[in-house]
């Protein structure tokens, strides 16, 4: 699979809201794919947060949002925060 194909596939998964094993994808990514995979992982976190917010998984009040934010944040490596 070419770098373009792989990134297209990952972009499709992010857009569809399908789960991705990001650790695996980042480990397997070559030099050409690495930055794109990491960027898509970042966008997937925004998408996941937004989806949960829109679907009521995250309560709109601040306390619950903060709790959910911490849950999502725990999925982000420390060097990205």
């Amino acid at each position, binding site marked *: 699979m070419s770098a373009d194909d792989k990134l297209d596939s990952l972009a499709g998964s992010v857009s569809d809201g399908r789960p991705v094993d990001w650790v695996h994808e980042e480990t397997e990514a070559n030099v050409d794919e690495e*930055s794109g995979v990491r960027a898509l992982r970042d966008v997937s976190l925004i998408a996941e947060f937004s989806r949960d917010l829109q679907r009521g998984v995250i309560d*709109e009040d601040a306390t619950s949002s903060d709790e959910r934010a911490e849950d999502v944040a725990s999925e982000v490596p420390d060097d990205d925060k």
Partner: protein
Amino acid sequence: MTEAAPADDRPPAPELMITGDLLSRAKGGDRAALGALMERYRPRLVRWASGRLPAYARSLLDTNDLVQETLLRAIEVLDSIEVRGPGVFQAYVRQAVLNRIRDQVRWARRRPGQDGVPETLEDAAPSPLERAIGTETLDRYERALARLTEDDRRLLHLRIELDFSYEEVAAITERGSRDAARMAVQRALRKLADVMGHER
């Protein structure tokens, strides 16, 4: 490929979609169209804004009020919004709400603390979204978004930020099918990732 279920289980009624036709009718003073515009878009926009408004700023102005006021202002100035294509209204309102949030945050940060001393920027707690992904990542996302075309920005706003279904995205952006909308969103995501990736 399967698509995750949309946030709103109710199928989008065509008359409630934010289409160019609805916008034109609203611009023409059609109250029903104005109401539909608000009804369809406001709830998702409120939820989106709630993720971006820090708790300390949110307490000063209810998120509902902030979005409601911004939407009403946008509708008031509809005639001055240059509608270059479908979905432009949403892109305009997204930026307007974001500007209101930033104004609100700046105002909240300048107000005196309990001891009368202005709170510093460092004291300000981040928004729920910033806490989730990090301020730096969110800034990189916003900068990258700003470098995309208007069409790509509104596709990502509708699908990634507001969780509209592909059918709804297709209707709002006047694309022929859900598959065409899905492909367009996927392409926009690739462009966004390319820009964000080069910023690292």
